[in-house]
């Protein structure tokens, strides 16, 4: 099969498990993010792809070819490191042309390609500068240009934007995405920032503190249908309400029975579940309103950041967060009585 395939991959360092039981297929031409908290193994997984570490067990295949034991310098993947790892003793141009020089490419061709890449990353005529003279953002681009010099089959980036300040980071996210689309190159980015993953990727691979993959899928799909409580909590914010499945299409949370959209088939009535609902899907109205999927409570805090308003409610001992735009904001203050409506189709049932 074409694309990158991980077959039963595990990696441990001594007694420390970094990655376990990874079975993953990544098709070509996609922008993939390995997303997760620190220590979940996402960087290790990337390094396994690059060939910088051998897996403890399992195989890695690219377009059907087993590359598990191919050394790093033969894999022809371009990589951008978190520290950028630009060669301090070489100029910008020499850094970019490094891989070409290693292969014995002709001087004129090296110069041509270097100029081409500098254009691509919007740093024209910088070939003779020294690395020490560049700003953080500029170094970033040089690292990208260097990695792309040999038309790699895979483009790998390890937390590439973490050293940049917030505004620059957001700009670079868009630029990286556009670059990838323009070149059509299969790209894997490691990040702990889920906003970044949501912005840039076609496919998100969510890894958890247990060093396993929890969910793989397009960003919005993961957002709307998280596979478990970890994903629900890690991606965006979520309200997670503990309860029991009191019937098909119904979950009992505290004393209230809430109608829900979909029930997983294999779930038995009476099982412990978590109900997940996103803040922007909760409708808050002033006063105590009775009705299906209505939870009465009191406003404990209002956070208005200008672009959106968050209302924190306490309902029957549960904390609920709702979010709305300034236009849709209900007229409520701290201490007021309010009711939260949880629309059935926005409620997702999670078992773990």
């Amino acid at each position, binding site marked *: 099969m074409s694309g990158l395939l991980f077959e039963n991959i595990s990696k441990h360092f001594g007694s420390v498990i970094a990655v376990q039981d990874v079975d993953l297929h990544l098709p070509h031409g996609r922008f993939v993010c390995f997303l997760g908290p620190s220590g979940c193994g996402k960087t290790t997984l990337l390094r396994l792809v690059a060939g910088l570490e051998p897996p403890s067990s399992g195989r890695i295949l690219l377009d059907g070819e087993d590359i598990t034991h191919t050394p790093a310098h033969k894999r022809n993947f371009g*990589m951008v490191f978190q*520290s950028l790892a630009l060669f301090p003793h070489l100029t910008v141009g020499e850094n970019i042309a490094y891989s070409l020089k290693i292969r014995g490419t002709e001087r004129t061709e090296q110069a041509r390609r270097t100029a081409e890449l500098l254009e691509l990353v919007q740093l024209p005529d910088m070939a003779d500068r020294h690395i020490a003279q560049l700003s953080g953002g500029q170094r970033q681009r040089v690292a990208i240009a260097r990695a792309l010099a040999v038309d790699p089959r895979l483009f790998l980036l390890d937390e590439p934007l973490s050293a940049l300040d917030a505004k620059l980071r957001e700009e670079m996210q868009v630029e990286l995405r556009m670059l990838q689309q323009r070149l059509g190159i299969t790209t894997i980015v490691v990040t702990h920032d889920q906003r970044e993953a949501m912005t840039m990727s076609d496919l998100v691979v969510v890894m958890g503190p247990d060093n396993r993959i929890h969910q793989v899928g397009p960003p919005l799909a993961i957002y709307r249908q998280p596979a478990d409580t970890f994903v629900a909590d890690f991606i965006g914010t979520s309200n997670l309400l503990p309860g029991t499945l009191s019937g098909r299409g119904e979950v009992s949370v505290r004393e209230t029975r809430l109608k829900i959209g979909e029930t997983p088939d294999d779930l038995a009535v009476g099982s412990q579940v978590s109900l997940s609902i996103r803040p922007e899907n909760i409708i808050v109205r002033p006063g105590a309103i009775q009705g299906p999927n209505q939870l009465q409570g009191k406003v404990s805090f209002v956070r208005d950041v200008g672009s959106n308003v968050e209302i924190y409610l306490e309902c029957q001992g549960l904390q609920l967060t709702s979010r709305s735009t300034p236009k849709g904001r209900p007229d409520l203050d701290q201490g007021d009585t309010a009711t939260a409506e949880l629309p059935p189709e926005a409620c997702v049932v999670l078992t773990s």
Partner: protein
Amino acid sequence: MSTPLPRGFKAHLPFFYPALMLGIFFLVPFGTMVVISFFQRQVGGFYNPVFDPSNYRNLFTPLFGRVLIFSLFLSALSSAVCVGIGFPFTYFITRLRRRAQVIWMVFLLAVLSLSEVIIGFAWSLLLSRTAGITNILVWLGLMETAVSLVPGFGALLMGMCYIALPYTVLVLYPPLSRLDPHLPEAARTLGASPLKTFFTVIIGALRNTLVAVFIMAFVFLLGAYLLPQILGRPRHWTLSVLITDQALYQSNMPMAAAMAIFFMAVSLCLVGLTIYLGKSRPGGKAS
């Protein structure tokens, strides 16, 4: 914290004591030596405080010239070999796990405690005919009979490398362990084999360090006094040997002082030249 300027006597206290000590016990002795080099020799004693520049004139003999050149050559060669071995060695050590590093470093520090005379003696045994390694080669069938490799230039070279190696490793250890580990990894992802990585990236990034260490080892080895006498023939005796000989056995301190100062001046010039040449090469500025 912008570093303030020290104000007042109390702030300068930590400065005065070392300044005093170094001034009295280093600058003054040094100055004394310069002064004495201009004095006249006193047979049977130390010196006559009479101004006599003939010592410096006497330096320009073929003998002195030959010994000077040989000393510089020997130090440079030994230093080059030592750094050539020590650099990759230290690099490998700094990539090992912590526990292994500590063991190696303790071992090196223990080797450091061997004095020049013991090292000389041990190597003279190791390279001798009766007890030396040539016996092993004979036993392996690679040689006919055991020979003595000492005294000789090769033996001396080996001894010099041995004595400078622990220092070289200790001086290379900080910069090599601080080297960004992602640099060689980046080179590998760009297609460079481990060997190519070592030469183009690691040596490249640490070019200035290499030069500095070479100079340090060079100057250090200039001071070898006992090794040339134990492992080398008289024609291998370096300037340090000659100087000590003049000072203590020929009772000609002024002459010895003159030789020492000249020796130092030449070495400093060489060091300065190396630094200058290093800076003027492209890329040599970036450190």
